[in-house]
């Protein structure tokens, strides 16, 4: 029994729910930066177990989704002005990126990579006006990881992509199916 099979055997209970051995057409496994942060040490175990169950020979992309808050892009509401629509106004960030935080987030895919090879994709899911900043931040983060020997473990350079979000025009508009009152949503469906 190799290490991968042994790992699967030890995680049977989790695989009762998250077993992907029958899924022949799976191309992408997505997760969020916030759930990786919240799960702390268990995130890599969870992803390793799920990925180890993939039997399809087709290459799989693992996508980690970063939203504004994970990229340290703070936002403020401008004072309500009846003439102009309300929208998120991003303040200028002057402080340095917290590389140690990003380094911790990169450790998870590094651990998982030992179970099954995949292409790592970092996705910035942010409002359009900060897309460039978010992409730059992710690139800095990958560079910093590489310098410290982190992402050099990947045979591929992590792919960096972005999901643009549209702003609502009216103050009370929000996205269907989202808790709370988010005033932006993905533009891909329009």
């Amino acid at each position, binding site marked *: 029994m190799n290490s991968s099979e042994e790992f699967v055997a030890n995680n049977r209970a989790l695989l009762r729910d998250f077993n992907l051995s029958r899924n022949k057409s799976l191309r*992408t496994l997505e997760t969020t930066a916030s759930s990786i942060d919240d799960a702390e040490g268990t995130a890599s175990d969870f992803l390793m177990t799920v990925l180890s169950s993939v039997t399809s020979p087709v290459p799989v992309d693992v996508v980690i989704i970063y939203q504004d808050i994970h990229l340290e892009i703070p936002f403020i509401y401008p004072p309500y002005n009846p003439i102009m629509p309300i929208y998120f106004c991003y303040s200028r960030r002057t402080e340095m990126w917290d590389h140690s935080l990003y380094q911790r987030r990169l450790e998870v895919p590094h651990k998982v990579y030992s179970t099954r090879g995949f292409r790592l994709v970092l996705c910035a899911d942010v409002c359009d006006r900060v897309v460039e900043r978010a992409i730059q931040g992710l690139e800095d983060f990958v560079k910093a990881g590489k310098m410290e020997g982190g992402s050099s473990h990947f045979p591929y350079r992590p792919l960096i992509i972005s999901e643009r979000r549209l702003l609502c025009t009216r103050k009370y*508009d929000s996205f269907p*199916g989202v808790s709370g009152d988010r005033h932006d949503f993905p533009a891909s469906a*329009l």
Partner: protein
Amino acid sequence: MHHVNIAIASQPLVSRLWYQATTKIELLFYGGTPGARASTEHSSPIIRLQIPQDVVEIIISYFIYDTTTLLACSLTCYSWYIATAPHLHHSLTINDRRFSNMGYRSFQTSYRLGLLPLVKRLRIRRWPYWSEIGVTPGRLCRRTFHRLSALTNLRELGIDYLEVSRFMPRIRRCFGCFSPTLLFLALKDPRGSCRQILYFIGLFPNLQDLKLQSCSSEGEQEITGDTGLIPLSTPPLRGWLTLTCFTRVTLIRDMITLFGGLQFRRMDLFRVKCVRLLLDTCAETVETLRLYPTDLYGEVFLKKREGDELK
């Protein structure tokens, strides 16, 4: 902000678009072939005062993410207003109580100005949000229902706390107007039996994406008499399935039975009780799967495993 949007696009694409735009402008002002400019410089040019609408729309499409610029463009002239209006009125949120806040007023205003056909996304919320009563026919007044039929291009519909059982058996009269165009449906804590909810979903024969949030079996009230309730159509449902805090396994089982299986290509599952059933049902079709390491089921297991290791 304008140059930023253009700068993001790839350079060959921008060059091509720029060439196309300049060629069209040359044709407008100088007539003939694109190279005719030099030969017509000393003769009287053919001047048209209006840029064709398709060119205006190409220009405006660069600003769809920039609401402030769109608003400024809409005030420029009639043709620019026509090009910007669909981008400015794509979404609308209303509350289920009349006069509850500005959301309802913007709905009224949009109806009066004939803007509702431009709306592609509609969200109906319960008001006040802490109310025990969900969205019922009594809370959405008759005039609102009449006006909903003006949303002739609606693609996405989200309703919070929809009391499906209270709308039966006239639910088709209330929401059937969205049948031809609706592609995405999001329901937060819908109330009613599984058959009633599936009957509601079956009102939309072109539905691709489905999102169900906070659907627990605790509030499940199955009615013995509604087993004969058959959905009016079988929606394709080949896009996204998003389930969050979902424990109504019967609803998924009935959906598989009544819709003849499921063919979702993308699934986003968080705290879902029937993950195994969904993964097996969509085994041949699912291409993208979004999971969360903080998922209750995974987390419970991992904590238990840690406990076992300590023992």
